[in-house]
C-alpha cells in the first residue's frame, strides 16, 4: 500500500514537472531565468504602459518568451464588437488604444500592464482591463503571416 502511494506521488510529481498547465498555481509569476528577466525588464522599461508602445514591447519580449515556450505568441486585443473604438486598461488612467499587444507564454500574459512577472492568462482580462467581456483576442498578423 505504501509503495503504491509512493508510486502515485512520483507520477504526479513528474506530471507537474512536465506539464506547464500544472506548473503554475494561479498566482505564481512566470519563472524567467536571470538573463531572460533582465531582457524582459529592459523591454518594459524602454516601452512603459503610458508610452503606447505596446507593440514594440511585445516584439522585443517574444523572442525571450519563445525560448521558454515554443508556443509563445503575440496577441492583439480588440474591442469585441463594432460599438467601441478603444480598449481601455484599468491603469494607467486616461490612455486610449485602438489595439493592445501582449505576449502569451506558459499560460501567462506579459506586457507593460502585467510587468515582468506576467499575469496568468485566465485572469489577465479581469485583472487589467475595463469591460473585460467586451474584448477579443486576435492572433498577431506579423507572426502568423
Amino acid at each position, binding site marked *: 500500500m505504501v509503495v503504491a502511494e509512493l508510486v502515485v506521488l512520483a507520477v504526479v510529481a513528474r506530471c507537474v514537472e512536465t506539464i506547464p498547465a500544472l506548473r503554475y498555481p494561479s498566482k505564481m509569476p512566470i519563472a524567467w531565468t536571470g538573463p531572460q528577466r533582465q531582457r524582459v525588464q529592459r523591454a518594459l522599461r524602454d516601452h512603459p504602459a503610458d*508610452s*503606447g508602445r*505596446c507593440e514594440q514591447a511585445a516584439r522585443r519580449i517574444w523572442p525571450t518568451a519563445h525560448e521558454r515556450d515554443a508556443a509563445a505568441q503575440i496577441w492583439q486585443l480588440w474591442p469585441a464588437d463594432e460599438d467601441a473604438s478603444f480598449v481601455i486598461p484599468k491603469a494607467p488612467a486616461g490612455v486610449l488604444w*485602438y*489595439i493592445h499587444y501582449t505576449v502569451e507564454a506558459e499560460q501567462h500574459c506579459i506586457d507593460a500592464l502585467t510587468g515582468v512577472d506576467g499575469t496568468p492568462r485566465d485572469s489577465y482580462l479581469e485583472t487589467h482591463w475595463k469591460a473585460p467581456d467586451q474584448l477579443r483576442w486576435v492572433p498577431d498578423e506579423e507572426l502568423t503571416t
Partner: protein
Amino acid sequence: MTAGERRLLEFLGGRLEAMLHRPDQWGPPLVVEQLVLQLLEMRALVLDPAAAVNQKHRIIRSFVRFMKESVPDATPEPLALQLERQGRGAELANILRKFVDRELIEATGEKLQAAEGLDQQEQPGDPAIERAERLLELLEGKAKARMRRAAPPRVDPVDLGSRKS
C-alpha cells in the same frame, strides 16, 4: 442604386470634405478623428452593404497600418494624440485626408477593376457594376463639395433706390 443611397453617399462625401477642410469647426482633434472614422465606416457600408467583414475593425486595422507609414514611432493610439505629442497637430487634417482617399480606393478599387472587366458583358444588377456606380456617385459628391468651397460667396446687390426716408 436607390435615390436614398445616392443622397447618402453625396452627404458622406460632402461631410468628409467639410471636416477635413475646416477641422477646427468640428471639435477637438480627437473628436474630428473619431467622426471621420465613423463616416468612413458608414461610407464603406453604403458602398458594399453585403460585405461580411466587420467594417469598423477593417478600417481601424487599415488606419493603424497607415499611421505606422505616416508617423515616426507610431503607436496604436489616436493619431490626433500622437501628432500633438510630436508638435505636429496642424497636420492632422492633411494626414487624415490621405487616409480617407486611400480608404476609398481600398473599399472600391477591386470592384472598379472588376467592373471594367465586365464592361463587355454587363448584366443589369451586377454587384460589381453597382458598386462602381456608387463610387462614381461618391466622387460626384466630393466634386460638388469642392466646387461649393471654391466658388465666391453669392452677394445680392443692395437696392438703395427703393429706400424711403
